[in-house]
């Protein structure tokens, strides 16, 4: 009877370590000034994206040819573009596009990179050689050039840009996961898991992936800046989001023609890209410290 009474409270307590870890990470990030800035900018970005219809002063697609190229002022916070659209509202709605790109690229790239890297690192030998040569092929092209090639083949659109960016962004993750896996592969706890009869898939999923995850998460966060820049670059070249979508890179591309007389067309989307990529970089740096296992489970 003592056994059952001892056993009963346990299942309820099980989710707690995860929650504690999440809270500790957030507290840790908020304490350091740089990562706190990153968190703040990202919170702003997410709020802007979620509440864009409430915060926007104008319809981002509404053209008004009587008020084209208005400088920033009370009527238009960040001015208007060459078709009289409100830049402030367009930036807010652009945040949605940026978030979509980041989210989709991350959920595609993270698992692919982890899978390829851990499998290559764990099995070694021929599996490793084949997987790593494939990775090398992707790595041997500059990512923007390769994604341009993919978009050119698939046809310019936002979705294709996301696919193209994902195809070029996974190899560094795979490389990182493989390097980490090779460190842990020989560890005694892996040997112990093998002695318990764990299958290779189980060892990779339960023992190796948790060890690789922090550095992969950090790398993904740091990668997001590159992803935003590549997306903006593709948008700028007309290969990403198509008009009239308010994508930040595309906004800069169209604003470029009016840059000399109307600085606000390029400056505000540029600042948005700069601050969001900077925020992701700072956050990634902060995560590096916060994801230390001793930090995560501190109570």
């Amino acid at each position, binding site marked *: 009877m003592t056994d059952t009474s001892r056993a009963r409270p346990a299942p309820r307590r099980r989710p707690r*370590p995860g929650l504690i870890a999440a809270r500790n990470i957030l507290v840790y990030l908020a304490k350091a000034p740089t990562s706190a800035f990153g968190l703040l900018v990202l919170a702003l970005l997410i709020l802007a994206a979620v509440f864009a219809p409430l915060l926007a002063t104008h319809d981002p697609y509404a053209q008004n040819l009587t008020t084209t190229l208005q400088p920033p002022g009370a009527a238009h916070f960040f001015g208007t573009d060459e078709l009289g659209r409100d830049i402030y509202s367009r930036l807010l709605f652009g945040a949605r596009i940026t978030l979509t790109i980041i989210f989709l690229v991350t959920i595609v790239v993270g698992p692919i990179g982890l899978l390829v890297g851990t499998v290559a690192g764990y099995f070694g030998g021929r599996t490793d050689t084949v997987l790593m040569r494939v990775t090398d092929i992707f790595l041997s092209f500059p990512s923007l050039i390769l994604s341009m090639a993919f978009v050119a083949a698939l046809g310019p659109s936002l979705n294709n840009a996301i696919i193209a960016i994902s195809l070029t962004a996974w190899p560094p993750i795979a490389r990182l996961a493989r390097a980490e896996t090779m460190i842990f592969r020989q560890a005694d706890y892996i040997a112990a898991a093998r002695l*318990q009869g764990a299958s290779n898939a189980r060892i990779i999923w339960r023992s190796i992936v*948790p060890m690789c995850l922090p550095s992969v998460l950090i790398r993904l966060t740091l990668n997001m800046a590159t992803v935003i820049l590549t997306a903006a670059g593709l948008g700028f070249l007309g290969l990403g989001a198509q008009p009239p979508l308010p994508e930040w890179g595309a906004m800069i591309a169209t604003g470029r023609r009016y840059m000399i007389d109307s600085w606000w067309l390029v400056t505000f989307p540029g600042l948005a890209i700069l601050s969001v990529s900077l925020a992701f970089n700072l956050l990634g740096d902060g995560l590096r410290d916060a994801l230390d296992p001793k930090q995560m489970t501190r109570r």
Partner: protein
Amino acid sequence: MKALSVEKMSIRFGSVTVLPEVSFEVAAGECFGLVGESGSGKSTVLRCASLLLSSWQGEVRIGGVPVREMPLMERCRTLQMVFQDPYGSLHPRHSIRSVLSEPLRIHGLDDREARMAQALEDVGLPPDFLDRYPHQLSGGQRQRVAIARALILEPAVLLLDEPTSALDVSVQAEILNLLARLREERSFTYLMVSHDLAVIDHMCDRFAVMQAGEIVEVLPRDAIPSNQADAPYARELIGASLTYERAL
């Protein structure tokens, strides 16, 4: 209770022959020691016997059945290993609960909570340790958890790879007493590697002295105090250990 026999085990890594040919017998319920200097191949014998290394020749039998022919699940329930370094043998991101429940899940054993509580009790840890992480435990507590993990599948043979050499002297004694008590209660067969003759003297019925991958001599425990070894290397090793103890 199962006997363990190693017949003509040999392994080479590239051009280096680590074990030329090793044979010995461990009786059921016996504690058999392997001593020798660093690099003499003691741990390699354990890693081969547990099939962590598979590219060796020869035969290892447990209770008469060759380990290579045992189905994986049966092998896991026959033979378990405790590693040298308790800081490296527990997954740093797994709570003690997942460390102990993982083997139960793999083998589809039910009644997990009770088994885990029992395993912790066996090694002298309170049941609320289940929700702790390895870095929250001391070295001795970690090694107790590692022993509990090896015990939870109820194996017949335990391979002990210097289970105390990474620990403090007082903690060493605790762990050795724990291992001795468990053997009395469950009549395990132990194959224990150590470079410390005092540990072997405390634990083992018989021991083999290894040098450069070969067994120089197999001796009973009683041979230690009066240094009855015949082989010159074994005499030297025991002599050195005795002088050291006297100096203390």
